[in-house]
């Protein structure tokens, strides 16, 4: 009883019981059908990677007070540039860096528009989305080929553990990076000087300013670094997941990332949990279509993850409170 009260006060009851339920379901289904279970879980991780990277970008920006609805566009243009650089150079590492640089550049654009020009941030983000859609649509040429995509790295004996090994320890590098970034950012935001200042700037910029914290540069740096992470998500799509570029291939992932960020209450670990949920829904949807479980048009099954996003947001989103100063430009007295 005391333990439950403790969990409730720490607001861990819901996530912990959801996690426990998930664990039970996974074990039961693994005992019944090991192959499908492994496939679904592996796919969950892969599907969640671009979502969590996008959400981390959102968290970095919004914690500093900048609303970034341009994540979709940052991902799309980065995916495209990353792919094109791969076509030209054939070097995957340089291609990933090019993708990240593209995201960072779009982050710089957003920061310039919202911090320096003090324009509406929603419009700034929308401009990025439209810009990315237009540029990639115009410059895309069909039939380009590359020297391949990023391959999984097997982490030695860890990969031999049944179920967990193949799911967690036989992934390509961007997937590992995403998971590491979740914990790094969680630490940075809540345990370091930089994180404390970033959150102060997002909540009460004038208070931060009177204490000698530079609001403008804090917002610039966070938005640019966030952009680089969104760029990594784009690079994941073309260089690690698919290996080629298609028009509008981000397919709303940038917006799902925003939903995931809100559901995770602007905390990296919370958002990671939410993106795993989304990834799981996506994996199930693929599995259902593959096995022909339901005799309904596949478009309806394809809606599953998005439906889940709406339900989750409607059910839990209301209680989350965004950083108080987000969306409003800061003006010195």
């Amino acid at each position, binding site marked *: 009883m005391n333990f439950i009260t403790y969990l409730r006060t720490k607001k861990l009851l819901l996530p912990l019981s959801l996690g426990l339920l998930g664990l039970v379901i996974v074990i039961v289904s693994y005992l019944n059908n090991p192959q499908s279970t492994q496939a679904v879980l592996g796919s969950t991780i892969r599907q969640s990677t671009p979502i969590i990277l996008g959400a981390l970008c959102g968290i970095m920006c919004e914690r500093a007070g900048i609303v970034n609805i341009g994540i979709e566009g940052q991902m799309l243009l980065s995916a495209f540039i990353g792919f094109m650089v791969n076509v030209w150079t054939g070097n995957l590492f340089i291609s990933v860096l090019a993708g990240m640089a593209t995201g960072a550049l779009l982050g710089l654009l957003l920061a310039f528009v919202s911090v320096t020009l003090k324009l509406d941030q929603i419009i700034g983000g929308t401009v990025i989305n439209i810009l990315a859609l237009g540029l990639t649509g115009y410059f895309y040429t069909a039939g380009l080929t590359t020297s391949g995509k990023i391959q999984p790295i097997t982490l030695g004996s860890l990969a031999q553990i049944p179920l967990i090994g193949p799911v967690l320890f036989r992934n390509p590098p961007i997937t590992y990076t995403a998971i590491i970034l979740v914990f790094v950012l969680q630490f940075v935001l809540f345990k*370091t000087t930089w994180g*404390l200042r970033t959150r102060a700037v997002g*909540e009460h910029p004038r208070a931060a300013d009177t204490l000698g914290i530079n609001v403008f540069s804090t917002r610039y740096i966070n938005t640019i670094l966030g952009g680089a992470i969104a760029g990594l998500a784009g690079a994941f799509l073309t260089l690690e997941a698919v290996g080629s570029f298609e028009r509008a291939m981000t397919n709303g992932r940038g917006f799902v990332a925003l939903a995931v960020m809100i559901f995770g209450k602007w905390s990296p670990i919370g958002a990671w949990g939410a993106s795993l949920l989304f990834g799981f829904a996506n994996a199930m949807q693929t599995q259902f279509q593959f096995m022909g479980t339901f005799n309904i048009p596949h478009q309806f099954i394809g809606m599953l993850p998005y439906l889940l996003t709406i339900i989750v947001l409607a059910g839990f989103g209301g209680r989350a409170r965004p950083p108080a100063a987000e969306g409003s430009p800061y003006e010195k007295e």
Partner: protein
Amino acid sequence: MANRPILETKKITKRFPGVLANKDVDMVLNEGEILAILGENGAGKTTLLNIIYGLYSQDEGEVFVYGEKTSINSPHDAINQGIGMVHQHFMLVPVFNVTENIILGSEISTAGVLNLKKARHRVAALSDSYGLEVNPEAIVEDLPVGVQQRVEILKALYREARILILDEPTAVLTPQEIEDLFRVMRELKSKGVSIIFISHKLKEVLEIADRIMVMRRGEVVGETRPNETSKAELANMMVGREVLLKVDKGPAHPTDAVFEIKDLVIHEDDHRNAVERVSLEVRGGEILGVAGVQGNGQTELAEAITGLRSITSGEIYIDGRKMPAANPRALTENGMAHIPEDRQKHGLVLPYPLTDNLILCSYYKRPFVKGLTRNDDAIEEYAKRLIESFDIRTPSPFIPASNLSGGNQQKLIVARELSRDVKVLIANQPTRGLDVGSIEYIHRTLVEMRDNGVGILLISAELDEIMSLSDRIAVMYEGEIVATLAAKDATREELGLLMAGSKKETVPAA
């Protein structure tokens, strides 16, 4: 204490477009003293301190710290010089805890990683040594205003401030919290901290200050000590003319009841009643004062009887007619006027111009409408007339209400509310945060309304105000009216006891 000067300004001048905010201001703060700067709103007190704290830069003049000429260009410079400031509007991050707020910007860390444990100990040690009780782990937004102020003071002390500037620190506090603040200020003084205390409340200044500097229209008009002066003299210096501190009023000539509340109950979320079976009767031509320590249901009562809050049970009558519940327009049309507690939140639409604010209760009536559109000529003409007759100081009727000073904002509300056919006026904290001149004006207006036969329900946390204005006094304690007395028979002591809940009885209404 005649110590050496720790902070001095010489011939500080600051101009804003159209205003001379500071003119040749010479100020001296000695080590270990409390200097009060007294002045009406807009006298230039805050401007002077913002210059000292580096938020503004002066056009002319110099600032000296420990006798050395210093240029302070940002709050950061001020902090480095040992100057700390508690702003009127707190600079705290509401979702951070006390420790995080205090260390922000000067964190204790190793290689960028916060050492929160050490920080908590520092904060606890500081709060111990200055008698500023606060839980280092409490979230700031959950704390009462008085405690938030302590956090602000701790923030300055954490940065080793030797000079503390308090900008109107009592404006937001309850009487008990003010007592506590004064205790802390004396404690700080005894530890050698020098304090500048800004206020426009004479009583407080006389109580706490070692020296008093009076400002008017950007200039220093005098300097004195509490034991060498009086309230009346200070008020005259402040306003520049004779001020009536006592309300001048004749006996009341009450008529029939114009406003009645019967068995009003307001249920609160947390299983208790904010207002418990309150019945009141206000007669035409009298002022009924509701006294009580804040938070005993006055806010809820005022909101309920003006239709802003739904009631659990009970009835409200104007002129014997039963009013529909929670319907402000019906109340307005039946002759109720309302001066709300929070004038900026509930009294005005701040971004609207004065003209629109003045017709908020009557915009839908002739002559302000013409068919489907506004009649701008009539609105302008009406606004100009009210601005003139209520002496609202404004360059134009078309500037936003937010640009006015507090006193003029209150006059704007009074002008709107009392320029109708009014039978009953609900005035909730009508002079809170106003300067002496404006208080005098509001008090005179209330007495005038009374003499014209209006029934007035005055709710105020200032006992002096209740005692000098009311004809009858009702005391509220924990949601109940515990007593109603005739004002001429009431003493401070008796009212104080009733407000503290130590004496529950019902004296028959006078």
